[in-house]
């Protein structure tokens, strides 16, 4: 982390002389030195707000400048000021009151406009009306359900029918074996919410009238609790299945685009675009010019990150495409590892950029838990909530997470619900990203990852300047619809061309469907080297493996490695052989330096752990070669180039069934003759001609 060339301390005099003096105080724009008058007539209280006498403060006691500007904006907006007047007034207040929150910034105008956006979205002088939602309408038109003197199933059936009749377009769904609904929080963020009893009750009340009938007539009642519980605990509901809520148009498996807000039975997705988000029609058969324009626009968003190689840039394009074409990929999706040599290189910014394009918001964050149990719980929580993009942010050092590895190759995820004895099963369709500095992948993770390596090749990457869009996230948010359109254009172009396979596509086990789909799209768009850095990723992840390869080959060269040797003997040889000692893998070398006994134990454990693992092109591997005086002996062997694998066909013995019948026929007599009877039948039948006859 230490940079070259920067002193670890500065003389205050040097700083004093190197930095500019403070700017002279700027008088207010009316030139009088007095504060400007508001653009509209204000009440006494609002005028105090205008003069900065009632600012918003933080818990820390300091002025919350942005909130105070909003407060001033609110005061003049409620008094009837127009957008241009408010923007001008906020700029003047920001400077005149000395807050200077946005004063002098290139994006100041945008910031003031955003304040007006917020004011307008909440309306003038009134809160937005709360929608009671949930269909229904006039209660007079609803069916009547009698709830007394009847059997429970009868009432439940009528209630379910009423719910189903009012579920077009769908608002109630089934997910992970529970009733759920799609709701928006106060910020307009859509989320999947499990329907608890109060939710079910409220919904029931809006789709039917419930009455008790007696000799004296009918009495209206609210849906009884026993009905609510029965409806909520049915094993099956006639409501559509919901996989996730998305905030961008999605490519279906057949290559068509699902871009109509609402529910799509084919993909089981609910598309809920943000306010004003409109992608427009994606060309059915995009032209080369369309593709070129799309690449050019996407490059504005992600082209200025310092990719170490072409493959990393191509992989970024694949990652951007993934959430939008996820439904067109029949298998799992690998983890995108955004890795860089030092902080400030832009890894998190890149992850956020991609998440905002794909999902309309920053990704769901996982904080790289420290133990496996916590990983499992967090994965369950995120998937159960319907997260479509999940980022494991700022991984420190090594990343070892069997649960994550399991989730990445799973189509569904099952786990116990926290605090209950139930399990939950949800589909796993998320796009996963991990960011960090020089992440070391461990366990099964390397072969479940793709690599995006950033390297600014300078000691202070955060100081890079002259970006096309200094406020990148702001630009991406503003241009998200264009960026999504560009990505879907690339996806459509590939489909329209007949889904051509990318040339020289490396094999990515378990993720072939994903690699073929997005790899095809990336290659067809004219971007080469998709997955071209897989070998480097594996080498980096397998640093320990390379050390062992070197050690075993030295052992092979220095000793008669085909001759079995005990750990004690090998330890002794190592201590007398400089080459072997120098080739020891890191953890063994450390143990060697500490103590002889500890080293022998560690060496024995390490040999046992790695027995059978192939190293290098020749498949060098450790073999357990019996015991000598109760001590295990080890030797090295090279793998033959051709392996023989056992298959069912190779084991098949067509006459075994007949023998069994013969045996059955002769019964106890044969049984009593002991095992010699079976000798011939136990020999596998290996005559190739006999196979052909049989099959």
């Amino acid at each position, binding site marked *: 982390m230490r940079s070259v060339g*920067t002193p670890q301390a*500065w003389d205050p005099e040097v700083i004093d002389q190197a930095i500019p003096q403070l700017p002279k105080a700027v008088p207010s724009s009316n030139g009088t030195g007095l504060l400007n008058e508001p653009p509209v007539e204000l009440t006494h209280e609002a005028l105090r707000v205008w003069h900065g006498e009632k600012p918003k403060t933080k*818990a*820390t006691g*300091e002025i919350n400048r942005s909130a105070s500007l909003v407060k001033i904006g609110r005061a003049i907006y409620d008094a009837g000021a127009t957008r241009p007047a408010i923007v001008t007034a906020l700029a003047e207040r920001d400077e005149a009151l000395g807050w200077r929150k946005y004063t002098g910034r290139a994006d100041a105008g945008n910031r003031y406009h955003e304040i007006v956006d917020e004011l307008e979205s909440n309306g003038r002088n009134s809160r937005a009306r709360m929608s009671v939602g949930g269909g229904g309408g006039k209660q007079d038109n609803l069916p009547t359900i009698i709830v007394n003197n009847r059997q429970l199933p009868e009432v439940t059936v009528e209630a379910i029918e009423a719910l189903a009749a009012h579920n077009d377009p769908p608002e109630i769904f089934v997910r992970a074996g529970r009733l759920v609904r799609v709701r928006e929080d106060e910020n307009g963020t859509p989320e999947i919410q499990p329907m608890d009893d109060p939710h079910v009750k409220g919904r029931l009340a809006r789709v039917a009238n419930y009455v008790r009938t007696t000799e004296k007539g009918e009495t209206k009642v609210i849906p009884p609790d026993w009905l609510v519980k029965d409806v909520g605990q049915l094993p099956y509901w006639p409501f559509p299945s919901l996989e996730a809520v998305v905030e961008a148009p999605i490519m279906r498996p057949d290559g068509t685009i699902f871009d109509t807000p609402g529910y799509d039975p084919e993909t089981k997705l609910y598309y809920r675009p943000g306010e004003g988000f409109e992608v427009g029609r994606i060309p059915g058969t995009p032209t080369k010019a369309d593709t070129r324009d799309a690449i050019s626009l996407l490059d504005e968003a992600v082209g200025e990150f310092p990719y170490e190689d072409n493959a990393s840039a191509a992989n970024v394009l694949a990652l951007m495409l993934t959430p939008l074409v996820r439904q067109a990929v029949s298998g799992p999706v690998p983890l995108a590892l955004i890795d860089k040599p030092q*902080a400030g290189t832009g890894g998190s910014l890149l992850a956020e950029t991609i998440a905002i394009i794909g999902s309309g918001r920053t990704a769901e964050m996982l904080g790289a838990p420290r133990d496996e149990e916590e990983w499992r719980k967090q994965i369950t929580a995120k998937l159960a909530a319907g997260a479509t993009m999940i980022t494991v942010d700022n991984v420190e050092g090594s990343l070892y997470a069997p649960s994550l590895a399991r989730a990445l190759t799973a189509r569904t995820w099952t786990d116990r619900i926290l605090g209950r004895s139930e399990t939950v099963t949800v589909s796993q369709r998320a796009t996963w990203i991990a960011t960090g500095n020089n992440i070391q992948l461990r366990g099964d993770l390397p072969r479940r990852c793709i690599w995006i390596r950033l390297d600014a090749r300078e000691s202070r990457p955060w100081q890079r300047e002259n970006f096309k869009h200094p406020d990148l996230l702001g630009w991406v948010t503003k241009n998200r619809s264009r960026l999504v359109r560009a990505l879907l254009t690339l996806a459509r172009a590939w489909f329209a061309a007949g889904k051509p396979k990318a040339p020289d596509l490396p094999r990515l086990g378990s993720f072939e469907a994903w690699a073929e789909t997005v790899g095809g799209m990336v290659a067809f768009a004219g971007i080469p080297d998709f997955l071209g850095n897989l070998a480097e990723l594996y080498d980096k992840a397998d640093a320990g493996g390379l050390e062992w390869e070197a050690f075993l080959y030295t052992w092979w060269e220095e000793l008669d490695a085909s001759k079995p040797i005990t750990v004690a003997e090998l330890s002794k040889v190592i201590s007398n052989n400089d080459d072997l000692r120098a080739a020891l893998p890191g953890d063994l070398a450390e143990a060697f330096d500490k103590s002889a006994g500890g080293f022998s134990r560690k060496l024995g454990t390490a040999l046992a752990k790695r027995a059978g693992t192939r190293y290098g092109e020749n498949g060098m591997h450790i073999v357990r070669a019996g015991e000598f005086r109760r001590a295990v002996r080890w030797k090295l062997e090279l793998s033959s180039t051709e392996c023989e694998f056992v298959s069912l066909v190779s084991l098949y013995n067509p006459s075994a069934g007949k023998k069994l019948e013969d045996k059955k026929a002769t019964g106890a007599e044969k049984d009593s003759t002991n095992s010699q009877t079976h000798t011939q039948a136990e020999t596998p039948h290996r005559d190739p001609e006999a196979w052909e006859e049989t099959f």
Partner: protein
Amino acid sequence: MIPDARPERTTELWAHLFEGLQGYLVTFTGQQSDRLQARPNELDGPRQRSWRWPEEKDEAAAYLLDQSDARRDAYFGVHLFRKSGTRKGEHAGEVQALWVDGDGARVPRDWPQPTAVVESSPGRHHFYWRLTRPIAPDEAAQLNRRLCYGMGGDKGKWGLGTVLRAPGTRNYKRERPTLVAGGVGA
């Protein structure tokens, strides 16, 4: 279990800023308000504590990280104080490092470069300049102010009594929390 290296990152930065000084280190934590009308970073339940520097630095770092794990935003006073239990500028001790909350701004290339950088959220950094000798608090505040105005940093964070986020903790201000990253010479 993967070892947690965060306490060392916090104390590493503190050592860079305060090494050679004595006084009281202040920690400040609070929880993002969940009130509907709350503005981003409006904190509820603020807690401020003073710790003897350097004797209690490890306890202070562990405390901040515990607070962060409990979903509280965790800050520290960027200079030491002569008195316990206060964060008023009048009680500020000598200052060994200058600071600027960049708030997205960058340090001009022809300036003395910061000796430590903390990424408080993606694209936003806190910059520190370790000094060869401690200087008076008021002198430090004036230099901070010039640094801040000169590079276009957050104008509300140059004064004495400022608290900034500690590396290794989480920033809950944003919709999704992010890890405060960075370090000495980063």
